[in-house]
């Protein structure tokens, strides 16, 4: 048995039959089938994914120590490697732990890609070859042909919008999982990976059937959710910044216009306060002269009508709580 035949028996055959059988259960929708199958695959691989994420997190935690080692043994690369290995061993971290689950997923991608191509009959000749992979389950023979239409997509051909979504979701996962850089070179490499990986997947999505792109999007979304649940952080993804950017792109909401009006009102009140203060100063100057004259002339002391609090400005009035709220507070008391 050659390796191709082994691959067909252990990977391609099961994948094709599960896809076809599942599509029959899921109302003949192949798009829905891909989504459900992705969720099942990711659920099965969850222990590995968790291990990978924990390993990544541990690697991130080790970065400061690694940076110290790099500084310390900058001139002796052999010693540096030894020390790094010692650190990994002491910390119980395996750099391969980050890569293994990714490598395990690769055959699944390939099997899924080949299955989609055959099941959707993208090329007639390859649909003909599908027969050699079919199990003798009646459901498999009756479920064909599967419906290649899903939402706006023809799952057998590439789709530009889906390719962009793959790139975007891949970029988020990259940002979330990127290790903090300890030196400029690492930083450049990390930045390159953050850009290169999504670009690469956009390109793949433009080349392969959109059914595979659908798998990548769902898979990326699941990764984002799991990553957030495990690490409780968005990694190097500055979420508030992007939320603010996104908000900036949206038209102003009702609440926003209220805030704006309130700010305008406060600004106008502050302006009028300044004017009032100026006017008051001017009045005070003239009043003082008058009072000095009156005080001397009539009672010999200053008469204050406002009880010594000074004249109430419009700003002071604006600062007063509305009656309603004051009443409520007093009621609570």
């Amino acid at each position, binding site marked *: 048995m050659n390796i191709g035949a082994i691959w067909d028996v252990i990977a391609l055959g099961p994948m094709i039959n599960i896809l076809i059988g599942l599509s029959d259960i899921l109302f003949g929708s192949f798009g829905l089938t891909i989504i459900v199958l992705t969720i099942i695959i990711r659920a099965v691989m969850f222990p590995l994914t968790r291990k990978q994420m924990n390993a990544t997190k541990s690697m991130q935690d080790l970065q400061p120590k690694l940076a110290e080692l790099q500084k310390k043994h900058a001139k002796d690369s052999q010693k540096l490697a030894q020390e790094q290995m010692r650190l990994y061993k002491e910390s119980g971290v395996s750099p391969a732990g980050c890569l293994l689950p990714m490598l395990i997923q690769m055959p699944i991608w390939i099997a899924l890609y080949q299955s989609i191509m055959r099941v959707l009959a993208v090329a007639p*000749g390859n649909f003909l070859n599908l027969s050699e992979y079919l199990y*003798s389950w009646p459901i498999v023979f009756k479920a064909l042909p599967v419906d290649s239409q899903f939402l706006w997509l023809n799952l057998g051909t590439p789709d530009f919008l889906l390719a962009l979504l793959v790139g975007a979701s891949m970029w988020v996962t990259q940002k979330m999982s990127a290790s903090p850089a300890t030196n400029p070179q690492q930083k450049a490499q990390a930045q390159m990976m953050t850009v290169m990986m999504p670009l*690469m997947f956009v390109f793949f999505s433009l080349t*392969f059937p959109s059914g595979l792109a659908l798998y990548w999007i769902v898979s990326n979304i699941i990764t984002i959710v799991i990553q957030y649940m495990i690490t409780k952080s968005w990694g190097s993804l500055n979420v508030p910044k992007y939320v603010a950017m996104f908000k900036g792109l949206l038209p102003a909401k009702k609440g926003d216009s209220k805030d704006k009006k309130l700010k305008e009102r406060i600004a106008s009140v502050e302006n009028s306060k300044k004017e009032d203060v100026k006017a008051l100063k001017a009045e005070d100057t003239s009043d003082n002269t008058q009072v000095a004259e009156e005080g001397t002339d009539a009672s010999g002391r200053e008469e204050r009508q406002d009880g010594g609090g000074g004249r109430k400005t419009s700003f002071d009035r604006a600062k007063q709580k509305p009656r309603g709220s004051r009443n409520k507070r007093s009621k609570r008391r």
Partner: protein
Amino acid sequence: MKKNRNTIVKAILLTVILIISSLAASCSSSAYTNYGWTGSVVDGDTIYVASQGKLTALQKDNGSVKWQREIEKDVAPASPLSCGMGAAASVIYADPVVSGDTVYVASYSGKIFAYNTASGNLLWKYPSEGYVEGIIGGLIIDNGLIYFAAVGGTVTALNIETQEVEWRYDTEDTIWASPCMDGDTLFVASYDKRLFAIDINSGNLKWDRPFETEGPITAAPIYDNGVVYIGSLDRGIYAIDAQSGQLIWEFNADSDAEYTPRNWFWATPLILDGVIYAPNMDGFVYIIDSTDGTLITALDMGNAMSSDPVLNEDRVIVATQHGDIYSINIENNTKFLLKSLDLTVQSSLYVDEGIVYVHTIKTENLYAINGGSGVVVWYYEVS
């Protein structure tokens, strides 16, 4: 600064490598490759064989080339990244057809070409500009009209003289199978599990509703004595009343027979004196009584069969996908291995004057094999 420049160079190099490797992986992958499975046709002393991008006329006796023409490569609306998924240029699935002094070829990219049989000159093409939907099933020529079904589901009657459409009927299904004609009825089977009977005079449906199977139909329907027979990918052979479209009998995987089909009936069965010879993808040829659908016997050929069988005197010739050519004696239903070609055979076979013509794909050769002895008379390397 130098480090940054190195990083940029590395990034660019990596991008280029990835692009090239992914293109190579996707486009060279067998999953994307469109091999046509066109057969051949004999007219007079010439055999015509269509291949990827070419139509060749060969001397029937010795396989020498009379003429060869490039089949126009259409500029189909496929993205440069789609690796020919949209419409592969000049891939031919349908068998060429000869009528009068013209040989007709239909391409998967959606064009019909008419060549002069003697000179090989292109007489016309339809449509002259652009293309219709891809054509996988064959052409039927009758009374000055070409009938064809396109992948997108439209069945068209095209006037040969004017190259104008006489009528068009949209089944709204995908169609891969060749149509079959009897009298004024055109029978068209679809990949979406249905069989239509269309009146060739009006282009309207004859039956109240199409006959439905439980699987896609890729084999051409066959007509015999008021009954239409079809093989389906649901592992069944159906006999349908040609007038009413009602089921007469069905032979399938659930039948109470010694052997039951375990895979698709992809190839068009052959009917002869009330007996149906139906090759299956499970490697068996099912020999069925056409009157009631009972199994007479099943012969194990060892490998999947998708080529249409042919009759050579009192022998039925079948070919497996692995290139084994068998002869079945219709008197006692015994098999005889004529020739092992060790090449992929998916095209329909053709027989003329005791010679079996086999067009292999991937490695495209045309073999002329003596139908009695299995001796290769000549072969021509098409590609």
